[in-house]
């Protein structure tokens, strides 16, 4: 697994290149509100059609391994303990102790204060920015609501990066976005990106959570995706997993379209991470199909696509066991989360 190093540019550089030097709230609004509207019916039809592809056994076996390689194995509970994080890391390193050919997951995703325990538990398996091993993703910026002052959000981020997080999952201020204060959301993302800078000048990967369940319309999702990319996000992520609906196929398809358009426009590849509500292999395979047919198969790599999930992994392992042994397996044969 390789992580494409984020382009070392001043965080607002993308927006300046795209919108010109006189970057103001007005120019940002004109750009975002000038994006064409989303054909909701067409989008949902397309997503539904992508969900009906017939996947044959050999492709399914490939897809199951690919899904595991793309998982951000997540625990984001108020009741998390160091012990819970250690068992999560153990599972990330050896998803199925009965079958050592099982690939490892891309990353573990924890709260910022749990990062040191994850670093400790991963030991030599930690990628530490080498692109080889398991990453640690930390949610920051007053996750999941994002309701805190910018100072607190930046401290939260810097803290997690200093503790060893390779990736930061930030939430946008949905209140500001929905009231049309795009400039504020933009500045927040730029500032958080700056806080992701390590001492050696490299940046932790920044995933921007749009929380699409609170954005109400597909048009808003498209605008927020553009905004997050313009402000310097390396990944756009659907949801925190704490709001229903979390990730849906149409929303992910829409975000993939934005990412594809950005790539056509600039040649730069942005990642997408659907998170929350993807529990079965069947659902996850639909996402893989959507990625391959929208952004392209080169997006099916951990540096460009992730699943934010916890229970998905067990279902994938059960399916893997079914393919290997020829009979259905059960929850007694995978670890309890």
């Amino acid at each position, binding site marked *: 697994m390789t992580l494409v190093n984020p382009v070392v540019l001043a965080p607002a550089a993308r927006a300046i290149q795209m919108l010109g030097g006189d970057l103001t709230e007005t120019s940002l609004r004109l750009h975002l509100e000038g994006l064409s509207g989303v054909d909701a019916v067409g989008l949902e039809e397309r997503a539904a059609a992508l969900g009906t592809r017939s996947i044959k056994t050999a492709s399914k076996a490939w897809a199951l391994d690919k899904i595991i390689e793309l998982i951000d194995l997540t625990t984001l509970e108020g009741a998390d303990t160091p012990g819970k994080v250690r068992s999560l890391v153990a599972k990330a390193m050896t998803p199925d102790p009965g079958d050592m050919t099982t690939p490892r997951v891309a990353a573990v995703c924890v709260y910022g204060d749990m990062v040191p325990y994850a670093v400790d538990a991963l030991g030599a398996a930690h990628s530490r920015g080498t692109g080889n091993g398991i990453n640690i993703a930390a949610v920051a910026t007053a996750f999941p609501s994002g309701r805190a002052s910018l100072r607190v959000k930046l401290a939260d981020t810097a803290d997690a990066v200093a503790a060893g997080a390779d990736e930061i999952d930030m939430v946008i201020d949905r209140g500001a976005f929905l009231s049309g204060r795009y400039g504020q959301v933009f500045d927040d993302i730029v500032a958080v990106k700056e806080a992701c800078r390590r001492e050696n000048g490299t940046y932790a990967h920044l995933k921007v959570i749009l929380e699409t369940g609170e954005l109400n319309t597909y048009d808003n999702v498209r605008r927020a995706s553009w905004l997050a990319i313009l402000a310097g996000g390396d990944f756009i992520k659907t949801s925190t997993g704490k709001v229903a609906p979390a990730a849906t196929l149409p929303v992910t398809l829409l975000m993939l379209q934005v990412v594809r358009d950005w790539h056509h426009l600039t040649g730069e590849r942005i990642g997408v991470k659907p998170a929350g509500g993807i529990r079965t292999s069947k659902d996850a395979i639909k996402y893989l199909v959507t990625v391959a047919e929208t952004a392209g198969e080169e997006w099916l790599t951990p540096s460009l696509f992730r699943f934010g999930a916890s229970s998905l992994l067990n279902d994938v392992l059960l399916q893997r066991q079914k393919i290997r042994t020829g*009979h*259905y397996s*059960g929850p*007694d044969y995978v670890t309890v989360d």
Partner: protein
Amino acid sequence: MSRLAVPKTYKLYIGGKFPRSESGRTYEVATAKGAFLANAAKASRKDARDAVVAARAAVAGWTGATGYNRGQVLYRIAELLEGRHAQFAGEIASSEGISLAAAAREVDAAIDVWVWYAGWADKYVQVAGNGNPVSGPYFNLSTPEPTGVVAIVAPQASSLLGLVSVIAPAVVTGNTVVVVASETAPLSAISLAEVLATSDVPGGVINILTGSPAEIAPWLASHADVNALDLAGAERLDWVDLQISAADTLKRVLTPVTGVPAPSLDRIVAFTETKTVWHTKSLI
């Protein structure tokens, strides 16, 4: 004026719902004389898998209910069966080719068996459990507990009495079941599902599949999340192979029975596991 016949298209009963087969397949059910009677869903291995998932999800709630409560719920089903007596008798008469009077006696017998088993819900533990003599200041108690998910191949000839005689002993203790109904005469099974859907039995406790037992049973026998296998109606299948694949995951297995299994406490206890606990006497 003659009326247009309205033949039914039956579906499966999984997790308290009536889905079509995932495979989209159906087969024609005929009377004993070969006339068309209805269409029934032909379950696939994936329907069996879904049914096991539903049954597993229902285990905690059903096992957790008190024996007294389970008895009440099961007894209520007997009441509903009584209310649909004529419908069941008609279906049995047409699909098994026996007289209406004989079919009515079958229904009576099925209801009696159901009531008999329902009565055991809050009694089997006392009869099958034990206080064990030990040489120490302890109570030592062995109690039977439900084993979990039971997969059943129902008797193929007796469509209602046979079905009831295998479902009731498994669910009375708190197990949940996935039952493959009689292939040639599935109507009683689906009418029973309609009874269950309007009763107090939680969805997923009893799941009924129609179709070919020869096709579905091997998947249930080898399924790692099934705890026990009742092969009552598998006489004509390659049941030794089923037993062998069930052994891979240490399932409890009951071997085929000719005709209808007689009501017995043994069938109840067959799908339980004995838990033995020690408890100190020192507080007395």
